[in-house]
């Protein structure tokens, strides 16, 4: 029994797949895109936090002025 050249060669390993059967490259690209989105979200969150801190301080001052002026809490 002589096998053909093809049958003697080990079968080629299937290409590695990423999540959901997509290629590894697809997974890496998705991760990179999400990492960029995350970085942008964090930057936006920091800016929002700083603006909100200022707004919160102003609200607190307004509340205190209102208390003094009216003589009772709002």
């Amino acid at each position: 029994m002589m096998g053909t050249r093809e049958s003697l060669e080990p079968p080629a390993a299937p290409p590695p797949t990423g999540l959901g059967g997509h290629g590894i490259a697809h997974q890496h690209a998705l991760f990179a895109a999400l990492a960029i989105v995350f970085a942008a979200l964090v930057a936006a969150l920091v800016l929002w936090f700083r603006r909100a801190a200022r707004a919160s301080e102003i609200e607190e001052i307004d509340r205190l002025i209102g208390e003094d002026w009216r003589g009772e809490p709002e």
Partner: protein
Amino acid sequence: MTQVVRLLDAAFGRAAPESGPGGRAHLIAGSLLGALALAALWGLAAGSATLGQSLASGFKAPMVLLLSALSALPAGVLAVKLTGAQLRARDMVASFASALMGGGLVLGALAPIVAIYFHTSARYGIELGIGSVFAALAIGGLVLVRNLRVRLGPTGSQVAAWVPAALLFGLFAVALVQFVALASPILGGPTAFDAGIDRLW
């Protein structure tokens, strides 16, 4: 300092008294940033096998947390509307942000234990890392329900707090599984969560 106390009060399930829009936005943004910082601390500890892995996990853990939260939030807000709960969308967002902070506090508190176990135990290091995430999820879920109940007040239906909270929590967990798989490895070794829901279920 007062703001930190407010953040922690909300994260412990004692929702802050109603403040103005600025105060509420400050609470939400502060809670989210606090949760991200604590998740990064946990990531640094959980990936501390090598310096590169540690830095990568310190980036990946907060990324997974924030993206999962943002993926689940729209459905949670929709659930509030559909259940007819006497809640506003901003109540749900503020409660969820505080819940993330509560879960982040658990991760941050357990980070030193995770790190020391990872370096000294071949058997329990990974398991403890996964266990700390489940503990954070449990505490976060508890904080979410407590905050929603406080915001509903004594006259609101308690079911109205449970349904959106359960949906939001469930969707957050479902999203978390896939984002963890996408970002893996986060822990310093293989876990059952590396291949996502396809291999987990």
